[in-house]
């Protein structure tokens, strides 16, 4: 049954952060001010690749009202950052490798003075030949970005002998798929406030998806103990992976410590574009062969990813792509090889879907082409080759078994889009240049960081002196609704009212190490943490209450407002405030564990997967070449729905991001320079493209004995739509899409009457 407000009953709740959002009262971190604050700016390289010969800050520093002009010489600690590998300079010393590279940073009394100061910094560059294509970058003699060369990472996977197996295939499809540099386009650009405290500590108010990781990274850069840095990191005006890595934090922190005054930075959109991460552009070549009966005999994949100048999570994204070009199918022979290559283009990094978007666009494209070659229904063809429950994961590794693949396939079969897919949507009133088609795609998407990568989880519950139960997690609220989900979990797990407890996140001074709010992991890990803490915390609370009430703990229950009698739950015996006042020892339970990973040696391999089937109906206007999605169906097998509004919002929102990826979004670079500098040329979907029908069917059941509970849904909505649209377009107009975003020119047809006009002329 479709997920919506009316079907959700009381579980559809007003989000705790809602009122402040709809009234504009919510203070985002980029809205903050402090008295005496300065305005920070960053001088970035105009060149995609150059050697720095000299940086002269004299004139800028002499400008009245300028309080600091800092260069690499002023970085007290490690002049580099990166979540996985610290290779991105905070302030460049010898080379700049992309147009976002930072060379200097200034703090001044006003934004205008800061801008003027930037223009007075004299940097002498020796401009170098660039590499702006990853395949060129691999050629002998190509300019090298780093001493270790241009290769960031290689990853592959082999099972059987694909090479020789092709000889036995009845049909082989070879195709190369190209995907664009997509921009996160969070509406709030990067920024924040940096406050040097009287006691020598530094408070950083700046969005991130992992406050404790930012604290660690800043500690390295500033040569300042982590305990002397406080990172306040929520609320956030969107992130989608884009704010997980450091962005403006090093500059604000350096400037604040240097000037001993609060410093505010808030990127313009253009600065956000030039400096920020994007989704890895990938070229994925696939050769896939089947038997006469349609069994997948051999699958060979070559991936080349443009990772830009520095590492960030480029290697991890590539590992993820390798896993997901295999996906939910059975193959007799597999041969995957991939490389992530440094170029002087913009930075590529973490982005919702994490390499799965590119991989699955290509993989599902192969499935549709193979089915057609075989003369089979593309959905039946997938069913024939789909993994079965108890099959190992993509790398032949053990995974937490669910029957998600089968379930989403079955849900798709029951959808109205399926029933109607062979009947043309064309009606008597449809103009002849509008063609309709239906397509579908399947997704198996991993959650968590995977084997071999530190992936901590945990949380804390405590009874505060004011009688509130404090719920502490190191997760971040960037819009996904994590606070609302946590609120509902607390109500349902403990029988509490929303005002019995206080959710505390986004502040490194108070939160436990819960790991990052990434990789579709936070909801799963909050649930798991509460499962682990529920009984110990309840026992602790009830034992304390029993002492106060001079009865046995087993006669008591926790409930709305306080401790209640088990026999008469209507009867409030002791409020949480009274309990807190009575308790002479802290009532605290904390849990720490790691995100479940498979028992394998394969770095990045996942244990938990979410499955989805996506079907769409599109209209192609053959005069303009524009594609319009008029109907979407998403079946998602992710275990129980923890928060219906959040779940629906994640699938709708993720799908919208995929719609842009498929139809309009591309951060265009030429010669290492961004051509799309703002939202006038970088086009994300508007409401006008988003009015089609939309149905989300959650499949909630899990196998008996499953201990992992709800799987993540933060990313999966953003993955399957592109291949589904590509197939629907093919069904509509018979043209195969290999490159995203779809170029309308490829779909334009000269109408017959125009042909006639030409002949007559």
């Amino acid at each position, binding site marked *: 049954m479709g997920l919506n407000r009316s079907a959700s009953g009381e579980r559809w709740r007003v989000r705790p952060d809602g009122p402040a*959002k709809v009234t504009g009262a919510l203070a985002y971190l980029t809205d903050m001010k402090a008295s005496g604050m300065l305005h920070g700016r960053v001088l970035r390289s105009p060149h995609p690749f150059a050697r720095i010969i000299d940086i002269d800050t004299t004139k800028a520093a002499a400008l009245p009202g300028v309080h600091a002009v800092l260069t690499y010489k002023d970085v007290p600690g490690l002049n580099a950052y990166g979540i996985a590998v610290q290779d991105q300079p905070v302030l460049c010393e010898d080379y700049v490798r992309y147009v976002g590279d930072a060379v200097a940073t200034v703090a001044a009394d006003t934004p205008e003075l800061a801008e003027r100061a930037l223009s007075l910094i004299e940097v002498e560059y020796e401009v170098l030949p660039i590499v702006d294509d990853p395949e060129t970058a691999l050629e002998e003699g190509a300019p090298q970005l780093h001493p270790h060369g241009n290769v960031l990472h290689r990853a592959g996977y082999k099972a059987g002998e694909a090479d020789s197996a092709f000889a036995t295939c009845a049909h082989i499809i070879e195709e190369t798929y190209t995907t664009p540099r997509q921009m996160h386009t969070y509406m709030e650009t990067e920024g924040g406030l940096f406050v040097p405290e009287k006691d020598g500590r530094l408070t950083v108010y700046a969005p991130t998806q992992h406050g404790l990781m930012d604290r660690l990274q800043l500690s390295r850069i500033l040569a300042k103990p982590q305990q002397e840095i406080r990172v306040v990191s929520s609320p956030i005006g969107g992130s989608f992976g884009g704010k997980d890595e450091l962005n403006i934090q090093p500059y604000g922190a350096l400037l604040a410590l240097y000037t001993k005054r609060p410093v505010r930075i808030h990127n313009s959109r253009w600065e956000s574009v030039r400096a920020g991460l994007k989704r890895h552009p990938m070229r994925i070549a696939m050769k896939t062969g089947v038997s006469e009966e349609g069994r997948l005999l051999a699958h060979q994949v070559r991936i080349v990813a443009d990772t830009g100048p520095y590492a960030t999570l480029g290697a991890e994204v590539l590992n993820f792509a390798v896993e997901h070009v295999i996906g939910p199918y059975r193959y007799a022979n597999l041969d995957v090889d991939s490389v992530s290559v440094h170029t002087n283009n913009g930075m590529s990094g973490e982005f919702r879907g994490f390499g799965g978007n590119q991989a699955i666009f290509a993989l599902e494209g192969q499935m549709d082409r193979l089915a057609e070659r075989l003369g089979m229904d593309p959905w039946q063809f997938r069913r024939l080759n789909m993994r079965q429950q108890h099959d190992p994961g993509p790398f032949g590794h053990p995974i937490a078994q669910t029957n998600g693949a089968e379930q989403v396939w079955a849900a798709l079969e029951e959808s109205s889009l399926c029933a109607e897919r062979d009947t043309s949507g064309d009606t008597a009133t449809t103009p002849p240049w509008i063609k309709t088609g239906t397509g579908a795609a399947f997704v198996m998407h991993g959650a968590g960081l995977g084997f071999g990568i530190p992936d901590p989880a945990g949380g804390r519950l405590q009874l505060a002196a004011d009688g509130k139960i404090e719920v502490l997690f190191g997760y971040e609220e960037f819009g996904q609704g994590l606070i609302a989900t946590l609120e509902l979990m607390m109500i349902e797990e403990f029988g509490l009212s929303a005002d019995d407890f206080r959710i505390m996140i986004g502040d490194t001074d108070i939160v436990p190490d819960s790991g990052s709010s990434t990789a579709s992991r936070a909801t799963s890990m909050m649930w798991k943490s509460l499962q682990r803490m529920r009984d110990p915390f309840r026992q602790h609370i009830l034992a304390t209450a029993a002492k106060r009430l001079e009865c046995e703990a087993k006669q008591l229950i926790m409930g709305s407002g306080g401790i209640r009698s088990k026999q008469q739950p209507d009867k409030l015996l002791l409020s949480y405030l009274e309990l807190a006042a009575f308790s002479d020892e802290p009532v605290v339970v904390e849990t720490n564990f790691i995100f479940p990973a498979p028992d394998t040696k394969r770095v990045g391999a996942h244990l938990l997967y979410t499955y989805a089937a996506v079907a769409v109906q599109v209209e192609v206007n053959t005069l303009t070449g524009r594609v319009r999605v008029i109907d979407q169906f998403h079946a998602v097998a992710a275990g129980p729905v923890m928060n219906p509004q959040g779940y629906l919002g994640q699938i709708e929102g993720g799908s919208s991001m995929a719609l842009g990826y498929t139809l309009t979004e591309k951060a265009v670079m030429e010669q290492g320079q961004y051509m799309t500098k703002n939202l006038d040329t970088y086009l994300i979907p508007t409401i006008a493209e988003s009015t089609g029908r939309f149905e989300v069917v959650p499949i909630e059941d899990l196998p008996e004995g499953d201990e992992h509970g709800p799987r993540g849904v933060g990313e999966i909505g953003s993955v399957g739509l592109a291949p589904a649209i590509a197939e629907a377009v093919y069904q509509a107009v018979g043209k195969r899409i290999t490159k995203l975003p779809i170029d309308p020119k490829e779909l334009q047809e000269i109408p017959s009457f125009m042909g006639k006009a030409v002949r007559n002329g």
Partner: protein
Amino acid sequence: MSERTPAEGIRAVGLSCTVNGVPAELDVAPNKRLLHILRDDLDLTGTKRSCEIGRCGACMVLVDGKPVNSCLTMAYQCDGRSVTTIEGIADADRLDPIQQAFLEEGGYQCGYCTPGMVISVKGLLSVTLDPTDEEIEEALSGNLCRCTGYGGILRSVKNVIAKYKEGY
């Protein structure tokens, strides 16, 4: 985009307008953007900065009741006019029905586009309380939302229209 200060050659003149019904007298350069006047001079940070070229609608406010991108509106264009920001939409003791509908339907996620979105809906419903689907699309196509995919926003707008029909 930089704002030139009075010291750089543009003389500050008085801006006299009302903001959320309250008279405001400000000494600002005539070309200062309304967005920055609201956020920096008046501390009304509910109006959001995002693209600053009039494409995203995060900074939408009402000037004499009509939605405008405050990033494209200069101080002199507001002289003698009435400016309404998201902070001026609700009554003292009650949310505007539009805001209430967004809450009920979950027509927001990160919330950064929400003030501008609410303002645009307010502008639309001040023209007609029963807009067609095309009118809704038209009115909101200048407000970008990256989180919701617009489904929740459309449901919020339909919700409030239905409430008005029932005589809210």
